[in-house]
């Protein structure tokens, strides 16, 4: 099964349409998609606007491949479960997002060999055709890196030492900064 997700907040017809057409021409009937606010109605894939967090994880768990927009929720969930993921970043020029941050995060994740990035619809089709169940995948732990955990833990511990929080007035903040 291939699980496709575009998040829930914004439509992403370009991705859904590309997958739908691909599923039709390759006669695949094992594709499930969370299409969010997309307007395009696919005919070759099982689409639902939104799955609950548990259903979502269950679908990723069952999938052999995840295809997604380059949203952090989709990417991290796939990596935690250890599924290969192909992303098609949303583009601001096509009104798919406010800015091109998905291009930047996708590039970063690709440099770390965590995801495959489709540069265009045609490239996505090519990646889908080339993908094989034996292709390697990466699994990351469920936790943030130790430096970040340590920094946040230390801050919380310091708070515990300091007792109950005191209200600091905006006036005093002027002196602190």
């Amino acid at each position: 099964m291939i699980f496709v997700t575009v998040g829930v907040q914004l439509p992403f017809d370009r991705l859904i349409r590309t997958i739908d057409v691909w599923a039709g021409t390759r006669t695949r009937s094992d594709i499930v998609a969370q299409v969010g606010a997309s307007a395009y109605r696919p005919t070759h894939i099982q689409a639902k606007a939104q799955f609950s967090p548990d259903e979502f994880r269950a679908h990723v768990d069952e999938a052999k491949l995840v295809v997604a927009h380059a949203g952090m929720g989709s990417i991290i969930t796939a990596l935690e479960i250890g599924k290969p993921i192909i992303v098609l970043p949303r583009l601001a020029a096509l009104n798919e997002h406010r800015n091109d941050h998905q291009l930047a995060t996708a590039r970063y994740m690709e440099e770390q060999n965590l995801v495959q990035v489709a540069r265009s619809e045609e490239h996505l089709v090519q990646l889908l055709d080339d993908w094989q169940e034996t292709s390697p995948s990466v699994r990351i732990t469920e936790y943030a890196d130790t430096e970040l955990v340590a920094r946040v833990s230390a801050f919380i511990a310091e708070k515990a030492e300091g007792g109950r929080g005191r209200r600091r007035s905006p006036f005093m903040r002027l002196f602190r900064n």
Partner: protein
Amino acid sequence: MERPVKLLAIGSGGGHWTQLLRLRRAFDRCEVVYVSTLGQSTGPDGARTYSVPDANRWDKIGVMRMAWSVLRVLHKERPNVIVTTGAAPGYMAIRLGRWMGAKTIWIDSLANVDELSMAGRMAGPHADLWLTQWKHLAKPGGPDFAGSVI
């Protein structure tokens, strides 16, 4: 210390929430309460979880409704520490929580790689600990860089 620190972890559904959960090892010795926009009532490890409406800044009524929901949770739970990965409800929790005496942590989402999020720019100066997950976005005066959730 006789009582554990009460920590309120708040993040909008989707990427913010996924990133927030990856920090939970840092909450090990705390009593943790979660707040999301996903509508669920239990969080990881069966933790008590509240749901608040999400809102963007163009939707004034929505923002007021969200602020009211966040305020009610804060009033009920009285956390000592608030940690958030964004977005709008996290910003609101930092502003209201700090005013109520909590220590606050803003961790800007990994998705904000070219510049800080708007909510991050607004919340950061009010947070006691202000972090970005991108080294190149760290600045003197904040935010700091201390690694990422990946």
